[in-house]
Every structure is written in C-alpha cells, then in structure tokens.
C-alpha cells in the first residue's frame, strides 16, 4: 500500500519534552485551571480557601453549596468533556491515520447534535407535542445519552465509510470532504427543524454552540463512565495504534486484525464523543487540535499519548469555559465559542503544514 505517499504526516519535532515534564506541567495547568474555574463566578468571595474548606470541612453554607453543587460539577464536567473529546480525536486520528480526523470533522458531533436537537424540537418521536415530554439532560440523563450515541454513530459511520477509511483509501482531503458534506446535511436538517419550530430557537442555538455552564453532578455521572470506557479503549488499542501508524501491512504482518481494531476504536469513539455531546453540546476543535499538540510535545507513542491527550483536552476545555464567562460577564456565553476561536486558526495552520499529494 502506497499510503506513505498518500497520507499525511505532520513534521516531526526533534526536541521533545521529556514525558515526566510534559505530564507535570499539564497536570499543574489543569489544577490551576480547575481552581480558577471554581473561584471565578457571579457570586463573589468564593476563593481557593472555600474550595478546600468545602472539601474537608463542609458546613452547608451558601459559599460551600455553590462550590460543591455548581462550580465543582461545572469544572469537573468541563474537564471530562475535554478529556473525552481529546480521546475521540486521538482514536480517530490513530485509526484513520489521518491528522485531520476529529469528532467535528467526522460528522460525529453533527450527528449527535442533530439527534439531540430533534429531541428538543419534538420532531424526533413525532408523538411528542412538547419538547420537554421526551428527554432532557437533567431530567433523564439516560434518556438523552442513547439518542446522542445513536446520532454520533450515524454521523461517524457515514463519514467513516464515505471517507474511504474502511476501504483503505486513506486520503485526508477525501475524508474531510465527506465529513463536511455529512455535517452540512445534518446541519441543514437541524436548521429546518429549528425554523419550523419557532419557540425554542434561542435555546437550541445556544445549546448548539456547546457549553458546560448549567451542569450538575448528574451530568458528571452521565459522562464519567464513558470517559473510563474511552480510556480503557485507548489503553487496549495503544500498541495496535502504534503499529498501525507504521502502515496497515505492518500491523497485519504483526498479527493485528485491522477490522477488530477499527470496530473497537469506533465503538470507543462513539461512547466518548456521543456522551460529550449529550452533556455539553457539540464543542468543536478540541478533539482535532489536542492530539496534535500532544504529538508535538512528546512524540507519537500512543502509550504515552493516551494519558497526555485527555489531560490536555481537559485543560483546554476548562480554560475555554473560564474565558467564556468573560464574554458577557457576569452572564453566560457558550464555551464552544472559545474553543472555536482558538481551534479554528490552529486548524488553518494544520492545513498549511499538511502535506498533500
């Protein structure tokens, strides 16, 4: 297979951070981010001290309640969503050996959000006369997650096959074209649904930008198991992905079953990306750029990447959520806007570095 000429590789960076240093720095950044996230908000006077006291000496005061029931779940959810998206991106890029693969481009976000939005507008499940009578994130977390999974699978599988990943016709541009088309289709369907249902326009549009602002522990409980599933998948696949990176024939030659790798990876992607969309809406670019940043930092070994990517994904998301609060302070703006503002230009930069034949 002539994939080495056809596929794309971003330039290797010769000087890499030692693993430990990379981890320590990301970890510290995340901790600082979480602290900032829990100490910045509309109610003033909630500082790092409250953060620690509410953990060790919980007294049920308003400050402690805000810390424990609003800010902590929000920060935690941001971190988990970021981690999930990064895992999804890492798996996708590993399996498709395509540096531009990510939940956003793969149609996974679009699929999940279409299905969820249709649930909102009451088109999906036509019997419902009112959006709320079906499922809502906080009412029945179990209700919306399967819908999101279904949508994620729908969009992802479509792009996966059309993009030529399954048939080994790996080409970044083809994949991206497929992803864009599928996303456009799903997005227009969604626009149609929104236009035809007048009342909930604002709510859906806000949701579509992706945000973690109104989250509670239920959301965290919803996503956490899937984050673990995703991590497990990457751990299980790490060595296979490393071999796959050398070429499909190499992987096959060393006794790996490509189809099994793809199937397991695909399921893992649907779990992490779908659950992230279910709780936070379609947040873009985190899944795309975090794996790239990780590779620049520590290289291409998936055994290490699988730990660093979620860490950095979490960090990026937590900081984006913090920045989003200042757009219309003290009121809320969706964090997805910030990730897009940062990620979009990075995506452009990636296309500049991507080699195409």
């Amino acid at each position, binding site marked *: 297979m002539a994939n080495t000429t056809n596929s794309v590789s971003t330039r290797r960076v010769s000087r890499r951070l030692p693993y430990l240093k990379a981890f320590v720095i990301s970890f510290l950044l995340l901790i600082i981010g979480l602290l900032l996230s829990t100490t910045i908000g509309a109610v003033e006077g909630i500082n790092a001290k409250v953060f620690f006291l509410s953990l060790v000496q919980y007294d049920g005061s308003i400050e402690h309640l805000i810390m424990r029931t609003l800010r902590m779940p929000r920060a935690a959810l941001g971190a988990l969503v970021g981690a999930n998206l990064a895992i999804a991106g890492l798996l996708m890029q590993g399996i498709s050996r395509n540096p531009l693969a990510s939940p956003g481009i793969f149609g996974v976000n679009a699929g999940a959000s279409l299905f969820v939005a249709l649930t909102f507008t009451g088109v999906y499940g036509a019997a419902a006369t009112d959006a709320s009578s079906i499922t809502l994130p906080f009412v029945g977390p179990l209700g919306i997650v399967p819908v999101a999974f279904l949508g994620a699978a729908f969009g992802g599988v479509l792009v996966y096959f059309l993009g030529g990943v399954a048939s080994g016709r790996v080409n970044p541009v*083809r994949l991206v074209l497929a992803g864009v088309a599928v996303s456009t289709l799903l997005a227009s369907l969604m626009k149609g649904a929104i236009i*035809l249902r007048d009342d909930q326009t604002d709510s859906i549009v806000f949701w579509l*930008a992706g945000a973690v602002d109104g989250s509670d522990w239920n959301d965290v409980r919803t996503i956490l198991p899937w984050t673990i599933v995703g991590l497990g998948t990457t751990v299980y696949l790490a060595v296979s992905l490393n071999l796959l990176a050398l070429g499909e024939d190499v992987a096959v030659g060393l006794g790996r079953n490509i189809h099994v790798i793809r199937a397991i990876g695909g399921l893992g992607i649907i779990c992490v990306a779908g659950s992230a969309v279910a709780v936070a809406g379609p947040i873009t670019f985190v899944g795309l750029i975090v794996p790239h940043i990780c590779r620049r930092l520590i290289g291409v070994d998936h055994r290490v990447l699988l730990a660093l990517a979620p860490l950095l994904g979490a960090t990026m998301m937590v900081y984006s959520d913090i920045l989003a609060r200042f757009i219309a302070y003290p009121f809320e703006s969706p964090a997805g806007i910030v990730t897009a*503002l940062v990620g979009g*230009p990075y995506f452009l930069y990636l296309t500049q570095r991507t080699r195409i034949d």
Partner: protein
Amino acid sequence: MTATTTTAFDSGARTQNPWVKLYILLAIAVGLTLYSIGVGAIRVPVWETVQTVFGVGSGKFDYIIQQYRMPRIAMAWIVGTGLAVSGTMIQGVIRNPLASPEIIGITAGAGLASAVLLLGMPEVSVQFLPFVSFLGGLIAAALVYVLAFKRGISPARLALVGIAVSAVFTSGIDYLMTSFPVQLDLALIWLAGSLWARSWEQCIAIAPWILIMFVGCLMMAHKLDVLALGDEQAIGLGVRVEPTRLLALAMAVALAGASVAVCGTIGFVGLMAPHMARRLVGGQHHILLPTAALVGTLLVLIADTLGRIISPPVEVPAGVITSIVGGPYFIYLLYRHRGW
C-alpha cells in the same frame, strides 16, 4: 477536440446527442416554471393564471402572479444558473466532482458577513444585505486562495483550506447567533436560503451579472476541457494553467457570491447540478455549462415550489429542501467516487 474526449472524472455518460437532452431539459424547466406560477397558498384558476401572466386577467390576482410568484421563479432561474455554473467551474478547476461553492468558503463568508450585519448591527438597514454578503463571499474566497497558494494552487489544498476557513467562519456565525439572539429568526431564514418575497428589482439588479459571467464561462469552455486533462497535459496543449485557474475561480466566486447575496445559502445546488449535468451530457464544458445551469434552475425551482405547497401558508425555505435532497445525493456521489 472530439466528442469522445473523456475528462479526469467523466462519469462515462452517453453523449450521442447531448443537444437533444439540453432542449428536453429546457422544455421541462419551462413546463415547471408554468406549473410553479400556477400553484401556491392561494388557488388561482388555470385560465385566470394564464391571462394574468399575459396581463389580461381580471386584475384580482395581478399581485400574486405578477409580483409574487413570477419574480421568485425568475429568481430561481437566476440563482439556479449562478450556483450551478459556479459549481461546474469549481469542479472543473479543483478537478474533483465533490467540490462546490461551499467548499471554497464563499457560503460561509457570505453567511458570516450577513450574520454580522443582521445580528451584530441591527440598526443598519437590511437593504445592504446583498452587498455585504457578496463582499463576505469574495473576501472568504480570496482568503482561501491566498492561504492555499504554494507555488501554484493544488486542488486538494484548495479544498482543504476552503473547508478550514469555512469552519472558522461558521464558528463566527455561531458566536453571533448565541450572543445576539434578538434578530435570530431573520438570520436563520437568511442562512437557510430562501426565495421568499424576492422582487423584480432584485432580479433585474442581478440578472445581467449572472448572464455576463455565464457567457464568460462559456467562452472559457475549451480551456476548462483542457484543464480537466491534468496540469501537465494542459501545459503541453498551451494553456497557461495558473491564470486560467484563477480566472475560472474568480468567475465561480462572483457567480456564487451574487447568488448567495440575493437568496442566502441554497445548499448543494452547486454540487448536485454539475454532476447531474455531467451524467446527462458528458464532461465537455461548452454543453456541460448550459446543461448544469438548467439542472440548477430545475433544482431551485422544484425546491421553492415544494416549499410553497408543503404546508401553506407557512413556507419551507428552499435551502432546507435542497439540502435534504442534496445531502443523500452527495453521499451517493462520495460512495461511488474513487478518486481522492
């Protein structure tokens, strides 16, 4: 050049008598135009319709027929042609049947510019919308071209950069929509692409441009055919590849930009029409371009007519319908397409 020349992505259409097909298509389009004039939220008797079209009706339906249905149908011809011809040019240049005006950033650019106007500057009159939107499309396309330029334009890179720029612009639209929800409905309808309430003035303002550029494209037909053979071949045949490419793209951008400026983003027409036309009459641009124009017209016309009769008096924007049809068609294309 003979009629049997195949292009890089000729789908192997039978091209024995393409002109007959073209005229049949024209007949269908005219027939549909007449039908479309006759249907809508208000039932107008057939004979009354005919009389009104020729200005000898009772006068009762003058507005509905002459000022409401006819201009929007004329607009369907105009933007259908604009989008389809634009798509044909872009596919010719990028040499990939999956490319479309959406791909090179025009739609997102125009969308962002309109969103800025509609949402961010609500006090500015919407009369400026077409101008602003056209400018947005133009700027986006220029940006894509500049970013994709590396010792010439590689088609694949152009597509990739186009998508990236579109993604960034789309985020901008998202931002505006969430931050300025007051004008949301207006923006959504605009972004969905609709022929609702288009006037003769708008038709007259835009038709000459579309027509001129269409003729310009026809005059480039031969060069486009050669370009389709690949860069080396084209150079061998004495075509200056880079200037031709730039000119063709510029025309495509102007066509799509003008169309989007008056009707918003009617999705997938620029993608579907050239492809259907190619299957009908083959890949030679002198016939492909007019055929694509007719197919594009038909698509927009059908979408608009359907949108008017699905659940009157509420109208479904034409862009929503073309996307619902165009998406699966694209998926089918992609499934069949063996290139990159």
